């Protein structure tokens, strides 16, 4: 594995390997001494063109727990800014000796460009590009699902037979795309639930089911419900609004106490964060014992440690005999 750009690039064996590695690393994070010397001397650069404190801190923590040096590069780049930003920034990072670049960018395909352009030698990790992919989010979601829903022994296990409902703004969600890809690879069955305006043309080709009706899907007793964040801005643009308003959205697609009660007792409630309490998820649901939202954050560190370990710890192909 040279880069992690998309969940669609992960085959079954690699995905399970990442989860197993994360499980071992998660154990280290429960100890008093959480730091491991493994990536000492390596430099990880967080290249964030979009603001995201929580994801950046998660990657920073992961890198530091492996004793890597971390450089945070908060670049300003709107979608209309010229490409010099990305190219010149990349050349600067290469000159600084980055071993890995964790990039979040508003343009879909920016990590792909960084990995394939020849501007940097570093391993590239996609921390979210436009509406395309957010592979480490899907990995930590899969890890969370496995921990709760697959037997007592999880090593080597996938998610075969699990049924997961992903609810919300699929059209604009890189989390949804990554999860559909990864959960399918791991053998789970995904149902997307959204109003028609928030589903992309072409979703019929995705390896999942699609429904406009949340209550029907919940009645089929899924093992997990993943709520996606809905942006309020999407509701307001005149004529261009995707939805009449927040009230109708919550009524039809929000996870409230009533819908929570329909779920089987073993089912878990997930959310990639940050949540709009009261919009896509009610406070009761977010704070219920079935919600694993806070744990997802902790799992994110272990999963990102696993990704950095697998990308950086071994010799590069060229160096190894």
């Amino acid at each position, binding site marked *: 594995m040279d880069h992690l750009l998309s969940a669609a690039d992960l085959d079954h064996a690699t995905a399970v390997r990442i989860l197993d590695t994360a499980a*071992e690393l998660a154990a*280290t994070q429960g100890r008093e001494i959480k730091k491991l*010397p493994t990536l000492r001397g390596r430099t990880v650069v967080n290249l964030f063109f979009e603001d995201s404190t929580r994801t950046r801190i998660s990657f920073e923590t992961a890198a530091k727990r492996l004793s890597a040096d971390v450089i945070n590069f908060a670049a300003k780049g709107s979608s209309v800014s010229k490409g010099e930003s990305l190219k010149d920034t990349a050349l600067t990072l290469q000159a600084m000796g980055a071993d890995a670049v964790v990039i979040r960018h508003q343009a879909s395909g920016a990590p792909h460009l960084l990995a394939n352009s020849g501007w940097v030698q570093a391993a590239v990790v996609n921390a979210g590009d436009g509406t395309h992919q957010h592979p480490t989010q899907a990995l930590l979601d899969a890890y969370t699902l496995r921990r709760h829903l697959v037997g007592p022994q999880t090593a080597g296990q996938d998610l075969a037979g699990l049924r997961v409902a992903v609810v919300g703004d699929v059209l604009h969600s890189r989390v949804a795309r990554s999860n559909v890809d990864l959960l399918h690879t791991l053998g789970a069955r995904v149902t997307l639930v959204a109003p028609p305006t928030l589903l992309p043309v072409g979703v019929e080709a995705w390896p999942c089911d699609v429904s406009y009706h949340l209550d029907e899907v919940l009645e089929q007793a899924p093992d997990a419900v993943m709520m996606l964040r809905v942006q309020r801005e999407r509701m307001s643009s005149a004529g261009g609004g995707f939805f009449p308003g927040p009230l109708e959205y919550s009524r039809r697609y929000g996870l409230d106490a009533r819908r929570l009660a329909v779920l089987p007792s073993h089912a878990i409630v997930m959310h990639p964060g940050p949540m709009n309490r009261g919009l896509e998820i009610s406070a009761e649901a977010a704070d219920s014992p079935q919600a694993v939202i806070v744990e997802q954050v902790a799992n994110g560190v272990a999963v990102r440690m696993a990704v950095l370990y*697998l990308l950086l710890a071994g010799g590069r192909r060229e160096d190894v005999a």
Partner: protein
Amino acid sequence: MSDPATPGDGRVVLGPDDVSRALTRIAHEILEHNKGAAGLVVLGIPTRGLPLAHRLAERLASVEPDFDPQTQLGSLDITMHRDDLRRAPVRPIGATTLPASGIDDKTVVLVDDVLYSGRTIRAALDALSDLGRPRAVRLAVLVDRGHRELPIRADHVGKNLPTASTERVRVMLTETDGRDAVLISDAASGGEG
């Protein structure tokens, strides 16, 4: 995991009976030195240190009924503390499971199949220091083949095997390789892991 050996893997220097006897003797030595089973924690280093640790634990329990494998046996993976990670493609991380009571103030007995440069044990000591503060750490190995690169020595040795550094020592165990044997061959390709 390796397949059962084919002829040409080298000459056998320890057969199944030799391995069994060596482990029995090591178990007695451990109990003798510790004056019983109290405070012992046996940790096998994956890969082959693990089944060896299990077999040692069985023998310890049969000699000294106080020894409880449930609370005194575990595994210690040292991958994250290796100093040679960059020389090979990235390695999978093995399991580290400690007894619930931890290792603080215990006598930890590390178990591995072959002692060679000593770097694996150095990594194991680093890993242990992240996990707690044992009262003492001792080392039991099935084979010591010399050529130490660090000041590390084993407390309990199944067999001392002087070797040339061009030779290759291979330990096979029923649990991992289908039979018990220790073989020496002239290296044709690559070194040991």
